[in-house]
């Protein structure tokens, strides 16, 4: 299958290893990976802040970039949600509504793609370490992905998955919220990080790098030894 990667702007700029790992896993499974040129941002920052005209302008370009893709796999639950859930809303009653719905229908979040589209739960990975999984809210509640990443992690040799008490509690990122309301955002981060620490895990893993930026930002500031990794990075390791 020819898989078109959608690598969100902040993954491209700050967490390229997550994207590289996605490529590795998909190619290992025998798929042709395509990275459509000209992709930038999905438009979520202005969308979430209420500036829908500005978001639509960005999203129109993105629709064009992925127009010819067979399937699109997003490297972040949140940005995949933007395609799958919010583009149809953003383009509701516009000439591009049909195209937005078409993109929504062919877009998958990474773990969703592996488990539901490819039917793969064991990618042949090996990773030594204790891992706890953080559910990004968009992946969990908008895309209803809960077991998919866990199924993949349980089949990684050497990996011990320990559930944290607050797995489904928001880490407090929320895009602009994190800088508009830093006190609340950080308090939420603290609760999340304490819950992670209670597991005794060496790694906190998520399918959303934005959550990981928030979580590791707090962990590092408080010199906690837990490291953050994208799900793809675990699945790529052997």
């Amino acid at each position: 299958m020819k898989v078109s990667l959608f690598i969100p702007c902040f993954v491209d700029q700050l967490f390229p290893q997550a994207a590289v790992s996605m490529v590795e896993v998909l190619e290992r499974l025998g798929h042709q990976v395509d990275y459509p040129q000209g992709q930038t941002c999905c438009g979520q920052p202005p969308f979430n802040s209420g500036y829908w005209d500005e978001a639509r302008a960005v999203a129109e370009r993105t629709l064009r970039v992925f127009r010819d893709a067979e399937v699109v796999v997003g490297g972040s639950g949140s940005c995949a949600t933007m395609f799958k859930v919010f583009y149809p809303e953003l383009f509701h009653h516009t000439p591009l509504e049909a195209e937005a719905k078409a993109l929504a229908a062919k877009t998958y979040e990474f773990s969703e793609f592996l488990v539901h589209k490819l039917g793969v739960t064991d990618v042949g990975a090996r990773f030594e370490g204790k891992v706890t999984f953080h559910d990004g809210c968009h992946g969990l509640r908008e895309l209803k992905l809960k077991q998919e990443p866990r199924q993949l992690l349980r089949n990684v040799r050497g990996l011990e998955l320990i559930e944290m008490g607050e797995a489904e509690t928001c880490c407090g990122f929320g895009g602009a919220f994190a800088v508009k309301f830093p006190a609340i955002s950080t308090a939420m981060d603290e609760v999340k990080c304490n819950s992670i620490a209670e597991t005794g895990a060496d790694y906190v893993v998520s399918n959303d790098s934005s959550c990981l930026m928030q979580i590791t930002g707090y962990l590092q500031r408080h010199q906690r030894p837990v490291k953050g990794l994208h799900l793809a990075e675990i699945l790529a390791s052997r």
Partner: protein
Amino acid sequence: MSASTLFQHDAKAAAANLPRRSFVRTALAGYMVKRKAAQDYFQDWQSARQAASEIKYEGVNHLDRYLEEFTRNAEARGTKVFWASNSEQARAYILELCRQKGVQSIVKSKTMTSEEIHLNEALEKEGYRVVESDLGEFIMQLRHETPYHFVLPCMHLQRDEISATFEKTLKSAPTRDPEELTAIARRFMRQEFCRADLGISGANFLVAETGMISITENEGNARLTTALPKIHVALVGIEKVLPKLEDLALFLPMLSATGTAQTLTGYNSLYGGPGQLGETDGPEEFHVILLDNHRTRLLADPEQRDALHCIRCGACLNVCPIFKNVGGHTYGTTYQGPIGSVITPHLRGLQDWKHLSGASSLCGACTETCPVKIDLHHHLLQNRRNAVAARPVWWEKLLFRGFSFVMRSPALYRLAGRLAPLGFALRRPVRNTPLDPLRPWTATREFPAPPPRTFQEIWKERARTQPTP
């Protein structure tokens, strides 16, 4: 100080209060466990939610018909029904009633609508004695504070704090025993019940079919409030209407499960009018005030109309990470938490209260938990959009125009990425000062160091070295 500035200020203070946050979180964790058990009594909770949402949809979308049906049936049994467009009309009606009937002392059971219209202040200003009879509300009244949570008004207070409040106001002896604390309040309240000549309650449901109101409670105080005084006034939001009596079979256990994590609360009472001829109890007069107070603004908005489904169970507060970390008072509203953030801009003005819709990570825990399936977190997004459409913030508009311009040009996007390290270098002199643009993030969190190469660069390199066949 604007509501928004005050919110930021109070949120910061509340977030720094670790013991309080921890206490509230522990209490709500206990609620979640018990609530799960209460929900398990339902054959299928998700189907129950769907059914409840459909019944509320019917009620809310045919409010005109059901409110008239309620009124007809209530009046047939001697209930006086008053339609109040706003809080002034509702207050004026009650004040006039007090004057006419020579009321001196008023006892109240828990009613958030009275908080909404600032009824206590209005009554006290006219010289009436007003006593809250719900234990939590009573404690908050003694402390001259508003409810912290619209179902659990003093959930944030520890026993010592409650004891201290009683010592100061009721001159009781200090105690840490919950039963003793309750007994202190009860001894005081019994006299108030006997003395009161007017009882004010809210209602959890209005039953159109029978013209009755339904009140859910645990302490029996609402039964005394409504039965002992000569006059009973119920102040009820118009959205509380249910078409049929049998609808309560679903809603009473549902409200108990999500509101207080019980299979059924201690008391659920239906009130169908004043004492009838030949009956030995019941008030001489029964008034129901149907309160709009801008609820019809929500009704006029098809996108957010489902917010009127709300049964005020408070479940969305109990799962909300924002509520758990900033507490109820920070909101500065009658209705706290996600539902409050959704409806307050409609009830009290979008521009003054839009910050509440902004103060959310949009995690969706509220929507997931809501028993009547209100699309809460998406309504927060819609409030943000509506606020911008009505009055954009100039610097935000400029920022997002610029953002959109850059993101529409892959070349500019790449250039911005390449300039980022330069930005980091330029930032060094102002680092951690108020001039530092990253400070809202870096004051409490590390920002990731930019990697040597972006993914686009890595991909380009790969395409050069491994040309595709």
